[in-house]
């Protein structure tokens, strides 16, 4: 790897070598550092040391919730007599997010290497990549890379003579957003409909087939090789305290150069959008920024200088989420946007919790009317209450995500809604 060992110099981690052509081939990947440090890990590290390094690194889950990865791993009970499973969440369904896809299609071996290391730390014999059904190309890339890895004894029995054996299987989802939620993912992988489980018990204790299970996002796992090679301390010095390392942001919307950008944590929204993404298409400041995928609350122009960290986004009133930044300039029709998102959540709700099953559909139907100029003043209060009482009251966080756009719209742009009401249109 060519990542600088001076943390101050580090600009990218997961994407460090991603520009290299044909990296999906094992030989090319190896020429560029893939699996170079793996033998050392397998020979000289043990579970305790790996988990300590990951804890020290301050790495937080890149899938959305930002839970400290080392801590999650340390919750896994040992010697239960049951197998421990490692599941890579490659469902990437959060609207606006398209980062995991690039890791998998350009540098699959980075993910595989991260999974071997994580698996070694957790004493995993069987690991799975649950990949979004629509990612056919990426699935094929992953299959080919895994096959090469097996041939090179990087996977399978007795990996590189270390005595450690781990098998890796790719499982394609069927295109349900909810299957990205970790317990729904587990249900789906077990062959059942993807309906989230209530917690506790947490997957670390009772997950896949009720055995101890770690679910991590692609980007999280792809960060592990660099952390083990350079040390947890090194990673902890990148970015900001409690918000360490680099993060890939999938930027979309009214910017001139949308795309994936990996930057050190703490970079401001303005820097990312102006310096990396070529600025906005119209105007000088955005009207709305959704910073962490469509399920996170909206930020406004006043938050343009907020740092892109977990804490910074919470302080600004939103969440870093999956790092999917949706930028809207003054040309955006926020009611149409909200209506479309309401449709998404109503369509994707798994249907088990009353507030989510009934609430998402209700919100969508009201938004349909509002967009069509059929809304009434009282709809605004109903939207507000119906959304607010979904959030935090259900089995999983989909309901919170469904409430976020509605609550943001009504909080920040009530006048735009009001202007569309039937009273005012007529």
């Amino acid at each position, binding site marked *: 790897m060519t990542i600088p060992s001076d943390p101050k110099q580090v600009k990218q981690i997961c994407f460090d070598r991603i520009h290299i052509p044909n990296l999906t081939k094992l030989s090319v990947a190896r020429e560029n550092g893939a699996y170079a440090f793996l033998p050392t890990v397998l020979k000289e590290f043990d579970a305790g040391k790996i988990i300590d390094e990951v804890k020290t690194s301050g790495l937080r889950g890149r899938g959305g919730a930002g839970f400290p990865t080392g801590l999650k791993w340390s919750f896994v009970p040992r010697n239960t007599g049951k197998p421990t499973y490692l599941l890579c969440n490659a469902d990437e369904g959060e609207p606006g997010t398209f980062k995991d896809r690039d890791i998998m299609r350009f540098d699959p071996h980075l993910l595989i290497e991260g999974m071997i290391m994580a698996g070694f730390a957790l004493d995993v014999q069987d690991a799975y990549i649950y990949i979004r059904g629509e990612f056919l190309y990426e699935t094929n890339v992953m299959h080919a890379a895994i096959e090469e890895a097996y041939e090179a004894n990087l996977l399978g029995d007795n990996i590189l003579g270390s005595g450690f054996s781990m098998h890796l299987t790719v499982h394609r989802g069927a295109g*349900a957003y*909810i299957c990205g939620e970790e317990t729904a993912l587990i249900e789906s992988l077990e062959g059942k*409909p993807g*309906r989230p489980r*209530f917690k*506790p018990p947490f997957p670390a204790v009772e997950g896949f087939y009720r055995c101890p299970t770690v679910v991590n996002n692609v980007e999280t796992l792809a960060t592990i090789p660099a952390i083990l090679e350079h040390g947890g301390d090194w990673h902890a010095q990148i970015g900001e305290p409690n918000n360490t390392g680099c993060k890939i942001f999938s930027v979309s919307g009214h910017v001139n150069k949308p795309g994936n950008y990996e930057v050190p944590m703490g970079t401001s929204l303005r820097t990312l959008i102006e310096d990396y993404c070529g600025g906005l298409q119209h105007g000088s400041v955005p009207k709305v920024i959704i910073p962490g995928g469509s399920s996170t609350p909206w930020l406004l122009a006043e938050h343009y200088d907020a740092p892109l960290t977990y804490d910074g986004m919470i302080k600004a009133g939103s969440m870093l989420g999956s790092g999917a930044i949706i930028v809207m300039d003054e040309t955006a029709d926020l009611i149409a946007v909200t209506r479309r998102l309401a449709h998404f959540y*109503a*369509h*994707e*709700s*798994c*249907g*088990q*919790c*009353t*507030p989510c*099953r*009934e*609430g*998402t*559909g*209700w919100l969508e*139907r*009201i938004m349909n*009317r509002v967009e069509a100029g059929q809304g009434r003043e*009282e709809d605004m209060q*109903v939207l507000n*209450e*119906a959304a607010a*009482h979904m*959030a*935090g*009251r*259900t*089995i999983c966080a989909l309901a919170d995500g469904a409430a976020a756009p509605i609550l943001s719209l009504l909080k920040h742009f009530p006048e735009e809604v009001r202007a569309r009401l039937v009273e005012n249109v007529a």
Partner: protein
Amino acid sequence: MTTLYINEEEITVSAGTSILEACRSHGVDVPYFCYHPELSVAANCRMCLVEVEGWNKPAASCCTPVAEGMKIHTQTEAIKKDRQMVMEYLLINHPLDCPVCDEGGDCRLQDYAVAHGASHSRYVEAKRAATNHDLGPFVTTYMTRCIHCTRCVRFADEVAGTGDMGILNRSDHMSIAGIVEEACESELSGNLADICPVGALLDKPSHDVSRPWEMTHHQSTCTQCPNGCDINIESRGDEVMRIKPVEGSPEPWLCDRGRYVYDAFRSDNRILEPEVRQDGELLQATWDEAFDRAGDLLRGKRVGIIFSPYWSAEGLASIRLMRDAVFPDAKVAFDLHRRDMRPFAFEEGFSMTTQQIEDVEHVVILGSDLRQRLPLLMQRLRKRGNMGKPVSRIGAMNYRTNMSISSDAIIRPRDWPAVIARAMQQVSDLGQTAAGMDTWLAAVPDRHEAGKVLADSLMGETCALLVGEEIRSHVDAAALIHGLDLLMRACGHAEEGNDGRNLIPEGMNAQLLASAFGDIRTSAGDLFASASAGELDALVLIGSDPVGDGLFPSAAKAALSKVPLIQIGAIAGEIGNSAEVQLPAAAYSEVDGTFINMEGRIRVARQPIRSIGQARPLWKVMMRLAQALGADVPAVDMTELRDRMAAFAPELADVWKDKATEEVLVPVARNRDAEALPARLDSSFDLDVVSRYSMYREGMWARASDLLLAAGKLHALNDVIMHPETLAAKGLKEGEHTVRTFLGEHSCHIGVREDVSPGVLFVAKRGVAGDLSDVTAASIVGGQS
């Protein structure tokens, strides 16, 4: 233990309890829909939200375990608003057709809408449509009313074990469906209407006929099987509208047999008036005329008495008193399925409670179609299975259990000695034995591999042996039961208390029957034989149907062609055609009375429904009969009757003196000295005959119930079945064949099924095969052998 605070009050519950259960056990009301104490937690309705101090969002109390020092509030303004919103979400797609809904007046959604809902809905969009489903004869669906709590799905998976309810689609297209149309196969299907918190799943037979508030409730005991479930009979006036389980009783469910038999109470088959046969026809008579005629037929005669175990204890006692007063030499029979009348090492009844059976290390079922015989015990075993506890089985058929049996074997009834011997051998090889075991073992030359299943099940610290009808009705039953007793001793299960020995009785009150009639008991078959041989002058039949049920229909018919029958009871049954006199006695729903179930649990019914026609409680009819035959009336009232009966079962007296029924169990009779060695069975017939029991068709009550008969048709198998290889070995195929037995030759259609033991002729007792019930062995005419 965990200490926490609910609404400022300190309480202590065991660790891991959910907040909801902690609240329920301390009388704090938290509303819920999806939670059900007998089902797994789903946590989907979100009605049970409570506030936990220090948490940034409300907690679903059903799925949140308590924690030390937790401070919970159930009545804050925020929580009230949350409940109101959950109600509003639920009602947006609900039709609110309470006025035409059976559930109205007894509906959780309706109650909560009043208690927790807003006064009007703000929902102005279109409501969703839904598809109804055919869920069998007892459940009707109105799926627009479904609130998606998934109780029914969990019931089908966990309790019924059929798994035939499921969820289709997601979002607000999510819907509940029978996985296959018309597939609701469960013998427990009637419970679906009870567990559905709304009017989506409704009781079909009582659909659209009555409203909950018109009902009078009568607590009673179901006598349709030895489980003796507590039942709540709901009547409008004197008419039974439906039967429901009793909240807080040991079994939260009822089986479909016990629940739907109620239409028999008003069936045409009921005996409602005294009747006397004149010129070949039964005609209505006065009580006096009927007793006069009975007196003519019985006075000074040699009489055999046959009665049903299902009468109340008081009724049974009155039979004994009547017999002692007027027929002191008469033998009685109350069992239509026992061929071997030698004393059994452990007599009919359970040494364990169903809860103990649920909890033991290992359960083994020997020769019983338990799902048909004891559907609710079967569901207890299923509950064990869900917890990963083993249940093994040996029998003549892989009877359906709707659970996965840990290990099983199919055998012929004639293999039982070899099975038990094989088990003894295994135990003996480990150096364990019991006095007398070697002698027993030496009497059996063969060993049958199925014995391993048996021995393996008994090795643990605790076990429950469930001995069923294949052994109870075996010609060598006493020897087999003695062998099992020896085996249990050898395995270290000494005889004491709840020692694992459970012989499934034919009916209720087995313990009382043994103590009250043990000295004068004989087999029904013997009574019929005596009658046919001219040793009896008349038969008195009190509430059973030996022509329609049991193992002796041919013998019964032969006897009735020789001697007159005096029938006393509630239902006439098939044998009613032969009665010279019929006297009506009240149904079990219509009496003040005491019942003992297989566990020895006592129940006293005190609020009977009014009896119909001229039916009188059996004890009054018995006393009057004694009087008509010239004896002094042995007991003039219930008190006197009960005083006399206490001699047979002192536990009953304790309960009448208001000792709590939970504290009393009537013990099962034991015959420690009963030694019986297996006999060599030489049979000229190559097939063993096993009668198949159907909960929908067995018993005179069930056959008088149109509801059960209709359901029985859906669940019917071929009348006579065999393993295909047994037929093939004779060069024969499924079809019409002639079967030869000691009774002669019968022609019948023989079907095939893989799950019956080779070498067995399986006979559904009703229908064309009725006469085959009498036999234990048969051969097929034709084919090569």
